[in-house]
């Protein structure tokens, strides 16, 4: 991946988040506190501003720049999680691991570690982890991403705010999984 692709990725993702802001917040209203769309939109506006203000010289700095915007502007659970994902990608890029499968794997591991969630807990980890594996197998595509996102629906949440609902969390998509799906799809578009 290169800096131009990252910028394109972020532009596409910001548009996607903006378009789906109410949808994401509605998903979060059903099993959370209804702010996920607003959180992500606020964060992506900050990401765009950050990349604008401080043109990144290389891939590592691009990811770092994005991570700082997300960490300092999103708040909630999504902020540290997405922020950690990009921080880990920055570290990997710095040591030369710029291929997408590797970047996604370090990001996925970072998210899982930060949140303490495992696959099956009905969080964004349910998309991050298997998607990284798909990428390594050359199988990362829209259909597979959708499958991972949809698979969160029948689960009972064990981490995050939705876990307070117990049984009642079953039958709803996880909002963070949905926004992660969008992130991965726009990555595919930006790097196609």
């Amino acid at each position, binding site marked *: 991946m290169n800096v131009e692709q990252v910028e394109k990725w972020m532009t596409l993702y910001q548009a996607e988040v903006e378009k789906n802001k109410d949808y994401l917040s509605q998903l979060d209203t059903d099993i959370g506190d209804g702010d996920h769309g607003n*959180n992500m939109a606020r964060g992506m506006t900050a990401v765009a501003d950050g990349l604008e203000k401080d043109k990144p010289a290389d891939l590592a700095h691009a990811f770092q720049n994005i991570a700082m915007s997300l*960490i*300092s502007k999103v708040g*909630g659970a999504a*902020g540290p999680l997405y922020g950690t994902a990009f921080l880990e990608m920055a570290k990997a890029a710095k040591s030369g691991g710029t291929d997408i499968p590797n970047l996604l794997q370090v990001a996925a591991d970072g998210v899982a570690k930060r949140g303490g969630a495992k696959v099956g807990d009905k969080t964004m980890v349910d998309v991050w982890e298997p998607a990284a594996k798909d990428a390594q197998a050359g199988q990362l595509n829209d259909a597979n991403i959708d499958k991972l996102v949809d698979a969160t629906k029948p689960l009972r949440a064990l981490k*995050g*705010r939705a*876990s*307070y609902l117990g049984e009642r969390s079953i039958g709803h998509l996880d909002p963070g999984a949905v926004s992660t799906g969008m992130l991965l799809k726009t990555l595919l578009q930006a790097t196609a």
Partner: protein
Amino acid sequence: MKKILNDPSNLVPEMVSGMVASYPQYIRQIPDTLAVVRNDRAFNEKHAPKVGVVSGGGSGHEPLHMGFVGQGMLTAAVPGQVFTSPTPDQIYAAVKAADQGKGVLLIVKNYSGDVMNFDMAKDLASIDDIKVESIVVDDDVAVEDSLYTQGRRGVAGTVLVEKIVGAAAEAGLDLAALVKLGKAVIAQTKTIGVALHAATVPEVGHPGFELGPDEMEYGVGIHNEPGYKREKMVPSAALAKELLGKIGGHFDGGVAGKKFTVLVNGFGATPLGEQFVFANDVLEQLKDAKADVIFTKVGNYVTSLDMTGLSLTLLQMQDDQWLDYLNAPAATIGWGDSRNER
């Protein structure tokens, strides 16, 4: 939605600015943040260094946390956006402002977002060699607890933890002792809430959920999180019985013969008069159950914007020292008068 606001997305900065402008004797804003820190002479002139006690979380729960900053309670507090955890950079700034060379204790409510953001702030502070520890409040017994889940939410009991730990820090306890004390208090703090009407987040514009004209949500969280059941309204005495039953079950061997602090906490739109009617039922029933209530607070301490409803907290007072800490002076906006000797 009817609210007294300017731009809803500007609620938090304007609120913080209103708080520091109204009460400069207690708090000032930390430059370039939304966080606030003590502004009294003893603190500003570094009379006697103590462990800093910092808390924070999403806004919309006022007076929590900023209203509890002042000598004898919190050293600093960090507000996030409405119902959204504050970010690590803000928390880190508060830690630096609160540190007096004796380390800083973070009081965190048990939400994924809060736990993660405070953890990241801890990482940031470790680079400056500030000793930082954290305790996580999880008093909401409406939620099932288990090793494999997020565990319980942190709700109204947080104010009691902040008061006791804050007074102990003022009394000079060191960081390790404060962690131990905080954990012991949290383990004895059990809360459960009910809503008659959900809160409206200004940027959303409508209530988080809709209740029928005679319905009540039992076990609601302070961010409109749904509770464990939705049923027809019952009289105050029946409500007290339901909540005491739920909470009492979490104290091994029941409440008889034990000492308690009782907190009846309004959620923001519940008249104080109703809170006292409910407190009356709670205290009568606890007396009948042979529980010994040695400290009581009734009022809006941990609110949920304009939610109608209230929560009940029982804290089993395992140590006589805890009562002294509750009764110790606290110069804050929200805790109230502290000469609570009986």
